């Protein structure tokens, strides 16, 4: 077991380095998961998230007041001066995501039945802005109906009508299986994010170990010893797996601690299994990289491409819904995609019957398949390198 002990010693010697990596990536994971979770509707009540908007009107009228009141259902108003720079800054820093301007003469033209428009300046890609658009359009379209078909209707009366019309609300029944509805949003994000954090730590850590162990001179000396190559490799693999599991455990423990309330269920078990499978896959990837590349700079660069790049196309940072089909098809040739796929499914799991579990299991099997493939390729490369 000498080789095994040696590997452990090398790892221990580098513990400061490993610690820096683990801490950095862990902290980033925790912050990110919290931030993303808060963003989503984490409550079980059907509450739409309110955006911050600036309501700048160049005139006053009951119609406009009515619109403003209606908008309060979906927005928070932020007072901003009507100056270009202040408005630009506000959008830039996202203190508002929507600026609504009502031009002078709007009310009069509208009440005459003319087709006038309001101006908006927005931060694109903000979903809550859609609600605002919808709200405004609803209000004004319904108002238009009145204006067109009930001639001479006064603004006050119009506003009153609209108020009651628009107070009609769909009733929503939220069905959940368990009494204590648990949400797995945080865990979903955290475990998805592990595709970045855990993989980075594994690559950086294992390649550091490999650079020492696979250094040419040491390798030649080891090759002459009476310990068989097979035994040496096995011991090395054992040490690497130990490191992998250890890192995995640390990350997972923190996730569980942070999210304790939501953790005592079967979903968590599946999350854990899935992430362990991915960790093994990650170890295999690291092994491959360590065999391919020898310079430390190159390793940092590759690790970045592999972790960040794959995460981007697999739905870790940009949600899967937004990724095009061709992108997803390419991503499906990487283990990260299947890992994320499984995680997303696990987060939704409420019934643990076989038809629900089966796709998750196949994702895990695919990951293991990748692990094996990478490992074999790495072995082939390493054998060829041996005789350099």
């Amino acid at each position, binding site marked *: 077991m000498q080789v095994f002990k040696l590997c452990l010693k090398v790892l221990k010697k580098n513990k400061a380095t490993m610690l820096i990596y683990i801490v950095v990536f862990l902290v980033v994971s925790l912050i990110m998961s919290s931030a993303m979770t808060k963003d989503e*509707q984490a409550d079980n009540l059907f509450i739409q998230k309110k955006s911050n908007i600036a309501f700048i009107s160049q005139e006053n009228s009951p119609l406009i007041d009515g619109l403003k009141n209606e908008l309060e259902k979906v927005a928070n108003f932020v007072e901003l001066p009507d100056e270009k720079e202040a408005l630009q800054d506000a959008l830039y820093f996202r203190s508002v995501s929507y600026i609504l301007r009502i031009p002078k003469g709007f009310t009069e033209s509208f009440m005459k039945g003319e087709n006038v428009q309001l101006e908006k300046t927005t931060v694109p890609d903000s979903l809550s802005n859609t609600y605002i658009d919808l709200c405004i359009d609803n209000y004004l379209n319904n108002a238009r*109906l009145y204006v067109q078909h009930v001639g001479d209707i006064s603004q006050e009366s119009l506003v009153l009508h609209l108020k009651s019309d628009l107070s009609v609300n769909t009733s*929503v*029944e939220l069905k959940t299986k368990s009494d204590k509805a648990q949400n797995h949003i945080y865990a979903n994000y955290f475990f998805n994010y592990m595709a970045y954090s855990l993989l980075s730590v594994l690559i950086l850590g294992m390649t550091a170990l490999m650079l020492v162990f696979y250094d040419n001179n040491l390798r030649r000396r080891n090759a002459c010893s009476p310990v068989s190559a097979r035994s040496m490799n096995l011991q090395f693999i054992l040490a690497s797996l130990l490191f992998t599991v250890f890192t995995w455990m640390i990350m997972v423990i923190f996730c569980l601690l942070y999210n304790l309330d939501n953790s005592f269920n079967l979903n968590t078990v599946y999350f854990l299994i899935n992430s362990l499978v991915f960790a093994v896959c990650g170890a295999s990837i690291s092994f491959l990289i360590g065999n391919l590349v020898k310079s430390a700079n190159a390793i940092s660069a590759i690790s970045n491409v592999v972790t960040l790049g794959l995460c981007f196309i697999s739905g870790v940072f940009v949600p899967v*819904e*937004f990724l095009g089909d061709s992108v997803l098809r390419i991503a499906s040739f990487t283990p990260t995609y299947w890992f994320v796929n499984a995680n997303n499914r696990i987060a939704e799991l409420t019934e643990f019957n076989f038809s629900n579990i089966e796709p998750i299991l196949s994702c895990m099997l695919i990951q293991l398949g990748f692990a094996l493939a990478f490992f074999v390729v790495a072995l082939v490369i390493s054998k060829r390198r041996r005789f350099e």
Partner: protein
Amino acid sequence: MFAHIFINRLKCLLRDRETIFWTMMFPLLLAVFFNMALLNVNNDEMFKAIDIAVVDDSSYQSDRHFKAALDEASKGDGRLFNLTVTSKDNADELLNENKIAGYIVVEEPIKLVVNKSGINQAIVKSFIDSYMQTASSVNSILFEKPNAQQELVSSLNERQQYVKEVSATNAEPNNVLNYFYTLIAMACMYGCFFGMREASDIQADISPLAARVNISPVHKLKAFIYSFCASLILHLFEIFILLMFLRFVLGVDFGPKTGYVILTSVLGSITGVSFGAFVSAIVKKSENIKIAILLGVSMTGSFLAGMMYQNMKYIVAQNVPVLSYLNPVNLLTDAFYSLYYYDTFSRYALNIGFLCIFIVVFSFGTYLIIRRRKYASL
């Protein structure tokens, strides 16, 4: 002497093919991945029809208007829904298996049954809300003007859009750009590895090569600066390749102020390389630890600048604004974005100003440490 040291250093750097290849390729590869992932973020046509069901009971069948509205929304190519008309039990089953986002029960008011509150559910609810609110308006109008029915129908079909987008600046606010700008900023910070080597190679207590240089009649600081220039030029070259790739191959928009974009890249490169030299000079431990620190800081900086999760940038800006000025990656990202988005230079100047402060701190710090010519131990 400058040419001699500069050219030899450049030779050394260029011959480390592995490093050059990967440090040049990695931002390009990442850019390609980003591009793939972000293609559709700004694209509205990405919308996929939502799967829903409606319970086929007598109330549903008798509410002709609603039935018609649903059917209308569920047919054609740009349709909102994929509608299944079925029994309540079947609908429940479909919901359990997550095959539908929710199902509708026609009651007073119309009810929506879901098992989670996500985007799709919100869209369905909005649709129903819209319908019911309009129905309420129609009813009040008809109450006052019973004959208006015909005209109402045609009015209903002429739904208007009352809001038009007006941009505040010459450029459209664009979320996708931020990702690419953070990528450039990160690539600049990765110059730290070059800087790290420069600092190591001039300190005689770390490198025997440095001892030779220390003994030669060349002024140590001059030797360092000339050598540093070689690393800087090489890194700058890599950044330019990245910029050109982004601009001409991926079509990323930098705005019209090209000269300033180049200036920003140069400053970014200097920041990165000097950062590496600084950390390498200060941290007297092994090379692995230095690399870990450099990587850790770069990645954290990139994260806080919004590379992985865009909103992070704004969360930081709103909660801990000091941090957004202390993060060189963020400063660089913002500098690029200011050039694109704003007409004036005030925000750009602010970012660049802070960046220059960083450059001065890193350079001066490195200078203070490496200028030592006699060591306590070798």
